[in-house]
């Protein structure tokens, strides 16, 4: 059964326990950071940071609002990164996670460019670099456990369940509290749908969610040219052979003569 997570940003208190749990479970290196006048720390995702909380200040009804946005791989239902990868190092699993196989990866970094959310990060300082990103704790899910970040969240801001149940829960919350929420489940249709879904009380674009992400699943753009290759090959070879035959009648001499 396909799993999903609902991130209800109205319930997040910005404690960053998820960040810590993620780093511990995935044994990511601790990197020294400095205070930049912003509570976001580290400032962005990296090969050592699969998830972080962005602290965003906005205004609503003339009053300042503080929002806490959890960034991590959204685990697209039809991932562009997996369609990009020339060796199948990134794959979508039945349970939802988009997982990475470092044995296959050649380091072309097309996944990083292809991702509509700029999620995959690279180990630039290594001479045997891997791509790094949130794995949706696929090993934990396989064993019936919760992802590390969900497990540790103290306020039920993160809710893990079957995809359909998570969508139904999000819809019921929107219906139950129409005043509280922006009436949009972010990730329901974006990029063809993602397995991480967001609810917010502040406009998503103001929180740095990418605008201009189409609702079309991105691999739908590259599959038509790929699937038509046999037809194209047959067509071009036939056409070119015919031209060569018509134009070449009578000239049997070879290159040397």
């Amino acid at each position, binding site marked *: 059964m396909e799993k999903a997570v609902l991130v209800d940003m109205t319930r997040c208190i910005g404690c960053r326990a998820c960040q810590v749990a993620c780093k511990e479970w995935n044994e990511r290196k601790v990197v020294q950071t400095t205070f930049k006048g912003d509570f976001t720390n580290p400032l962005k995702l990296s090969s050592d940071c699969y998830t972080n909380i962005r602290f965003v200040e906005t205004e609503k009804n003339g009053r300042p609002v503080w929002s806490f946005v959890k960034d991590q791989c959204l685990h697209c239902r039809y991932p562009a990164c997996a369609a990009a990868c020339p060796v199948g190092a990134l794959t979508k699993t039945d349970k939802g996670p988009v997982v990475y196989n470092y044995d296959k*990866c050649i380091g072309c970094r097309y996944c990083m460019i292809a991702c509509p959310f700029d999620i995959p990060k690279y180990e630039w300082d290594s001479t045997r670099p891997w791509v790094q990103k949130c794995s949706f704790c696929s090993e934990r899910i396989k064993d019936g456990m919760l992802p590390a970040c969900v497990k540790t969240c103290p306020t039920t801001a993160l809710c893990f369940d079957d995809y359909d149940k998570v969508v139904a829960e999000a819809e019921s919350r929107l219906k139950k509290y129409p005043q509280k929420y922006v009436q949009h489940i972010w990730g329901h249709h974006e990029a063809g749908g993602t397995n991480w879904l967001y609810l917010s009380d502040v406009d998503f674009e103001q929180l740095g969610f990418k605008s201009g992400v189409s609702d079309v699943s991105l691999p739908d753009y590259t599959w038509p040219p790929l699937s038509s290759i046999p037809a194209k090959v047959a067509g071009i070879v036939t056409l070119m052979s015919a031209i060569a035959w018509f134009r*070449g009648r009578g000239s049997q001499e070879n290159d040397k003569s």
Partner: protein
Amino acid sequence: MKKDNKNTNINSPWIMMALVLVVALVFAAIYRFYSGLGAATNLSDDTPWGLWIGVDVLAGVALAAGGFAIAGAVYIFNLPKYKPIARAAVLTGFVGYVVVSISLFFDIGKPLSLWHPLIMWQPHSIMFEVTWCVVLYTIVLALEFSGPYFESIGARKTAAIMTGRPVLVPLAIAGVTLSFLHQSSLGALFLLMPGKLHHLWWTTMLPYNFFISAIAAGLAMVSFESIIAAKAFHHRLNPEILQGLAKGTAITLLVYFIFRMGDILVKGNISLMFDGGAGTLFLIEMIFFVLIPMLMLFKNTRSTNGMVVVMPQVLVLLGVVFNRLNILFLAQYKQGVSYYPSIVEMAITLGLIASIIVAYKVAIIKLPIMALKKPYTSFDN
């Protein structure tokens, strides 16, 4: 290398400069493999693809398209006028594709796994298809190029087979097919990025735009190097060939212009051209690198003076580089992020270009490339 210098006319100042760049390339390569991409390049999570992918791969493959275009003209369309430059065009393609493969070896994070796509199939990936087509087409070029090589070592029977129509016609057809597939697929790589690449460039027609512009660039490259080689080797070039190439480039540019503008018109994106920023880049691309060279070439299709086409053909070459770089960097555009290639990146790109020049010149001296009817010694001044 030293030995060659004495026996042939390889030691011109240009070639010496190229050799210096090749030596710099070797040092830069050692540094890149020992210290990793992070230390050697200015690439980052914000700009994962830089100079190497933009110039060496995207532009390089387009500039090497002359090989399939001329082979197709001679052996499929049976235009014998271009036979004298067919071998030089195939040489350009062959050297170009070998250098593209070498540049990928520098660029990918784990160079020793470069062979993975041949074993680990992923037919849903454009990159997988490009890899296969490039490998197969490089083999086709090597076979096309084996004729002159066998001639030079005196293996006459083999040479006669490899230069016969029964071999060259099928190879030309394979070349056109494979080139259509991967030249267009380099554009299709960016189809996954409708939300990132500016919509003056992103279109489902992108593969065709790449293919058509590659033909223009390939013809311009063949034309440009024919002129340079004729000058360097004091060898007279039939002006009809340059006229024909000029006409070919001009017509291809016209098709490209109509195709691209028509697509933008149909999609209703005309207003994007005048939004400053990316729109300005688009206008520069279309006016200075498409319209102006096209008009200059159409004007001079009957000129017997080869030099008048140099300027517009060079504009076409620069144009394809400009176009590929625009697409590459606009697709990665993020506010507040800038990228400028590091010394190592530049040394490797310049070194690879220099090694193309050296390889081209050595091949022309050593192998019967330039004129089919004369033995190669005749252009050894």
